[in-house]
């Protein structure tokens, strides 16, 4: 373990990743020193979306299961926190485990139905279930319906104040590291071996006697639970929940992030989220600079950029950092 860590530091990927994690770990201090508080907020969003993308990566990247409804778990996480807080239950010790548990159970439920299908049918059935959750959210008039709801942030009495931007960022960052650690343990276990094996050759794994349906179902439930974790953080970041956080476009964004970063790469979701948000923040001012007024049409550039990624950069940003081992 020790030696491999040091060895990995010598590769470009190891260097870039280490530098990146270092910058991220110190981001609140750096942004304060440079008086760039907005960058910290962008950083917080990147970290939260990385957690969500990492959870999708578990099933999409390693399992090859294209779930087109992952943003629903954002919503389940966010709405559990929001509904509990609207009813006076502010303690994060209750809210957070409840949100994760509900998402896990729901994921297991719809996973059991969805995993009967393959390919595009799977894409569509996961979308259908996400749409169900989405419309349920817009129908909750007591909790703002379509307008969404301003909520109080979760409380962890005395331990951490989520209103403080720096503490909140560090909490998100710690949870991202935990998520990545968990996902690396998961994929390198026997469980992960079966999951990855089933992606490349389902028949062979079945023939070897693995109950791949159950493995996939477990992975789906775990991914749902981690997705809810990101939703919890998102709700606390803006102190606001709305059905828009689980629209199908957000599910699409998550897929884009995972692919952009590099499917099945441990740090892929982080690279992807950075790339995605960097484009959003920088492409517009850049185009405006080339010609005033062009910035508004940034999606004319962004659209073909996605096409290029899909066509020529299947390995995503991760593959730019050299070949992967194992």
């Amino acid at each position, binding site marked *: 373990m020790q030696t491999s860590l040091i060895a990995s530091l010598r590769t470009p990927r190891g260097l870039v990743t280490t530098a990146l994690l270092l910058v991220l770990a110190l981001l609140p201090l750096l942004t304060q020193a440079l008086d760039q508080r907005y960058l910290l907020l962008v950083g917080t969003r990147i970290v939260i979306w990385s957690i969500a993308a990492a959870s999708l990566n578990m099933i*999409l990247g390693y399992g090859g299961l*294209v779930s*087109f409804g992952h943003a629903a778990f954002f919503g389940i996480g966010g709405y559990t926190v929001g509904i509990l807080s609207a009813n006076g239950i502010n303690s994060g010790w209750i809210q957070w485990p409840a949100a994760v548990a509900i998402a896990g159970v729901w994921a297991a439920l719809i996973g059991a*139905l969805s995993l*009967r*299908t*393959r*390919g*595009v*049918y799977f*894409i*569509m*059935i996961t*979308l*259908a*279930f996400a*749409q*169900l959750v989405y*419309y349920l959210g817009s*129908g909750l*008039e007591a909790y703002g319906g379509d307008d969404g709801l301003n909520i109080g942030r979760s409380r962890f009495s005395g331990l951490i104040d989520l209103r403080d931007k720096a503490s909140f960022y560090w909490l998100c960052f710690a949870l991202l590291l935990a998520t990545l650690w968990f996902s690396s343990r998961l994929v390198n276990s026997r469980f992960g071996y079966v999951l990855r094996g089933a992606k490349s050759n389902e028949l062979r794994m079945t023939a070897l006697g693995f109950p791949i349906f159950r493995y996939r179902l477990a992975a789906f439930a775990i991914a749902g639970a981690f997705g809810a974790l990101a939703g919890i953080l998102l709700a606390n970041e803006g102190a606001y929940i709305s059905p828009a956080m689980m629209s*199908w476009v957000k599910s*699409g964004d998550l*897929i*884009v992030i995972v*692919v952009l970063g590099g*499917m099945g790469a441990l740090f892929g979701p982080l690279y992807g989220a950075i790339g995605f948000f960097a484009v959003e923040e920088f492409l517009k001012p850049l185009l405006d600079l080339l010609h005033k007024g062009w910035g508004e*049409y940034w*999606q*004319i550039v*962004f*659209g*073909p*950029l*996605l*096409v290029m*990624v*899909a*066509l020529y950069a*299947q390995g995503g940003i991760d593959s730019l950092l050299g070949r992967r081992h194992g």
Partner: protein
Amino acid sequence: MEYLIQVLNGLQLGLLMFLLAAGLTLTFGIMDLVNLAHGSLYMMGAYFAWTLIGWTDSFVLGALLAIPATFLLGVVVEVVVARRLYARDHLAQVLATFGLILFFNELVRAIWGPDGKSIAVPAFLDHTVEILPGIPYPAYRFALIVVGTAVALLLAWLVARTRLGMLIRAGASNRRMIGALGVNIELLFTLVFGLGAAFAGLAGLMAAPIASVKIGMGDDILIVAFVIIVIGGIGSIKGAFVAALMVGQIDIVGRAFLPDFLKTFLDPASASAAAPAISQVLIYVVMAAVLVWRPTGLFGQRS
């Protein structure tokens, strides 16, 4: 009486959706391409029609020119982007064609401006006809039913009786087989993609006089079109037809009769709150149920 009209409404809606779904299921079935940008072709058809009707000062002429225009656009999209995606997995296809949606939406805004456009109902259809004494029905919607049925019949003939149709059927069930038949596959694929685009364009321009021509008009109903082809079974024209009519009726039933039905066992307030919520998700519930029951849709190929 009202019931009859509502059935007609559902039929008309279903046929319109079929026009959109037909092209989608064709490209899906024969080239195995998930084309999210199909809705953009629907939008482009409507915008082409708006411009061409303005130039020719005739709805029919403009519409007849817009169809080949969308066909050509389809061919361009196929040659530039789509054909590079056939061999790729669905994920790459979703990503690339999602990129195309963004591109087309902003392109339309750059060319035609942000405000929507309007295509008037042609004068010869701008009236109502009495289908039964005292029951008027818009003539244009009748025209939609007629055109929709005609296209469905044309497509049925094309698929069942022509060489192209034979290749399409062969392709939907076994892609490798058509290669073995010594057909120029590249040309066939381009043709099928263009055909699908033309159908989408037709749907877009036919919908324009009752809807509005606006940016992103295809995105809203693209998901419904996907639901239709998934319920019907991917690649099956028959499935798309049955599912489209089914979805049309389900939609109308949910909107027209569900509130009254719920009132028979719920109090009026909860019934009128629940009805729209239920009708909004009804087609998703139906799709999920169909897939749980038959994982490859009603008329899909068993794997």
